[in-house]
């Protein structure tokens, strides 16, 4: 019983969000508002953010139900560019399949797929300049793939093997690739948000021409870092594109636990005076167009853009997750915005620039490419017992120069190893 009840007032009730569908439920996404493609206006990139706040509550879509590209956001890409994007997305999917299986085979400890969200990272990477700096979360491996980064290098990291550029120091998939403009991924959520803003501020302060782009999930927008970053980005008009990947699920917590029952994530931009776009994240052309628009805004000192990519996490959060425990198995196929790979493929077919046979052949070719990369990477070893990294590298990189207390601890470790009679490699 409540301690302070008053007879003349109704008792208060706490609202705890609850997703519409749980395991076993029939799924009907009719309540998800999907405006027709081409219906959303495209403001000039020089317009004041407050003049188009309606877009933060709408949905930018280019590909319509007949697989045509329509409306003012159509980026009018060449067939070659469309095919390149399709290839990157299909390669990402093939890579994910292979590495997921590698984890299940015990070759590594952990993996995270981007299935159903391929357009979000791949289309953005194609719309950005290669020199622009990306601050990804853990599900934007598509940036590296679209930028043509070596699959073998990515796999070496996943296996923590002897060729791992991160020397086995990071959890699998927490890549860092400075040469590819890809910042070191953190496991702590949204910490990259203010960092991307800081990078963009530095670029602007130095009179550089490069911009920054950053990604987080919708669940992570609840972190303080997100709001600190929005404030900084707005205040200094930082040349940064802030992407929120709304894939509906943060492990088992649906988007309602980040506030989606009452507003959109793009609308977070409104309170900060930042340009906000809400985009069909399964529509590669819409993602490309929004990124291109935001990049132009950033490059012309119009400041940051917050883009919500409305998409769906078609598989588990990670190899450690079983979504069957908390959501209906019918959700991924019922998702009203479809499969991003299929939608781009169907568009290319619709305009006569692709066909099912070529697609099937490409899928086979990509599967072979991934398989060959895996074979190559496994020559450098798979995860196991930390044996791939020289023992003394454990202490490298804590500081630029190793202080005495770390040298002492390193000596202790080596003495332990000698006493164990099981020698590990040394540098």
């Amino acid at each position, binding site marked *: 019983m409540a301690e302070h009840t008053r007879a003349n007032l109704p008792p208060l009730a706490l609202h705890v969000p609850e997703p519409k569908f749980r395991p076993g439920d029939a799924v009907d996404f009719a309540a998800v508002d999907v405006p027709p493609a081409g219906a959303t206006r495209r403001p000039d990139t020089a317009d004041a953010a407050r003049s188009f706040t309606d877009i933060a509550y709408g949905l930018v879509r280019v590909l319509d139900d007949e697989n045509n590209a329509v409306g003012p956001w159509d980026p009018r890409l060449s067939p070659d560019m469309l095919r390149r994007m399709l290839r990157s997305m299909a390669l990402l999917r093939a890579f994910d399949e292979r590495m997921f299986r590698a984890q299940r085979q015990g070759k590594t400890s952990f993996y995270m797929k981007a299935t159903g969200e391929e357009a979000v990272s791949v289309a953005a990477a194609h719309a950005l300049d290669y020199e622009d700096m990306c601050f990804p979360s853990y599900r934007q491996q598509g940036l590296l793939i679209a930028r043509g980064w070596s699959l073998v290098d990515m796999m070496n990291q996943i296996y923590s093997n002897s060729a791992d550029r991160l*020397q086995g120091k990071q959890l699998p998939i927490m890549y860092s690739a400075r040469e590819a403009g890809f910042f*070191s991924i953190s496991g702590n959520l949204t910490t990259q948000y203010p*960092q991307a803003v800081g990078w963009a501020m530095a670029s602007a302060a130095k009179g550089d021409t490069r911009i920054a782009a950053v990604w987080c999930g919708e669940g992570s927008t609840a972190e303080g870092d997100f709001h600190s970053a929005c404030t900084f980005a707005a205040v200094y008009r930082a040349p940064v594109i802030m992407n929120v990947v709304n894939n509906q699920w943060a492990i088992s917590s649906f988007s309602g636990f980040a506030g989606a029952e009452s507003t959109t994530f793009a609308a977070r931009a409104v309170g900060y005076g930042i340009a906000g776009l809400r985009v069909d994240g399964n529509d590669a052309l819409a993602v490309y167009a929004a990124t291109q628009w935001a990049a132009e805004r950033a490059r012309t000192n119009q400041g940051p853009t917050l883009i919500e990519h409305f998409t769906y996490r078609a598989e588990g959060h990670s190899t450690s997750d079983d979504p069957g425990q908390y959501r209906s198995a019918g959700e991924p196929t019922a998702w009203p915005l479809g499969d991003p790979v299929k939608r781009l493929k169907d568009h290319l077919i619709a305009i006569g620039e692709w066909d099912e046979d070529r697609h099937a052949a490409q899928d086979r070719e990509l599967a072979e490419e991934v398989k060959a990369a895996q074979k190559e990477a496994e020559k450098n070893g798979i995860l196991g017992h930390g044996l791939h990294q020289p023992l003394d590298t454990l202490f*490298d990189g804590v500081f630029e120069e190793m202080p005495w207390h770390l040298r002492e601890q390193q000596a202790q470790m080596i003495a332990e190893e000698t006493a164990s009679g099981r020698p590990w490699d040394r540098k």
Partner: protein
Amino acid sequence: MTMTEEPTTRMNMIQAINSALDVVMARDPDVVVMGEDVGYFGGVFRATAGLQAKYGKTRVFDTPITECGIIGVAVGMGAYGLRPVPEIQFADYIYPALDQLVSEAARLRYRSAGEFISPMTVRSPFGGGIFGGQTHSQSPEGIFTHVSGVKTVIPSTPYDAKGLLIAAIEDNDPTIFFEPKRIYNGPFNGYWDRPAENWSKHPAGDVPTGYYKIELGKAKVVRDGEALTILAYGTMVHVCTAVVAEAGVDAEIIDLRTLVPLDIETIEASVKKTGRCMIVHEATRTSGFGAELSALVQERCFYHLEAPIERVTGFDTPYPHSLEWAYFPGPVRIGEALKKIMKDG
């Protein structure tokens, strides 16, 4: 200590810090200063006064009031190639930035195998004795010394403040630079009811106007002695000096200056010589940096010790307002510990 033929002038600790920032900003265009009120106004303690006018608003700027944002942005700026010197207005306000400091700045070099570094120096006034109450008086150094990948530096004089700050800024690893605000204006001796001194009469208030560095990780013996070793830093160096003088004890007082990396050699040599060790800090006692010092001395000097190691610290309470001087490890608490350690053994 780097000796220099450069001209010197009298400075208090604020002026010395300001001079350090000025000198290093003039030498390196990548150094940027940021924080709440540091720009046009020049900082609530005036440590950044005049810098914005001299170096412009893209190198010295005010920030939104979000410590998480300040440090997060500084990580990004460091990744770009700048050398940020963010100010956290009071150490008591550093906690919202903890994740960015602990999981990001301190770990970036390690997790990226050197692809990205975080060469920032976080300046922050810390410590009590100014009637700041619990939100303007804390000494959280022990939180940072516990974190791998970050250095912690605490000066006790204007001369050291300038040389250490320049060294910290030029260092390629993240450094927490705690400034004992009680001694910004003068070497407070712990006798709060006596007239305050200022730095103008203290030899370490004589500060070179140009560039010099004091190497991080080097302690300073501020008083040679034979009877016992006192380990202190920041404000407590001056309190200990005064108490030792009053008691007429031949103590060797070591100002640690850098807590991580620690100058263990100087500590070890001194304790082995004196056979007694007293550790003094203003921070709360439990799990304070004194516990680490005590463990190190015990591990390395056990057979030379003639008495149990003494720790003199603040109490494990929030920093009080009206009862500030009951909390502060002042002359009485230190004096009693001194009697005890000299009687034992």
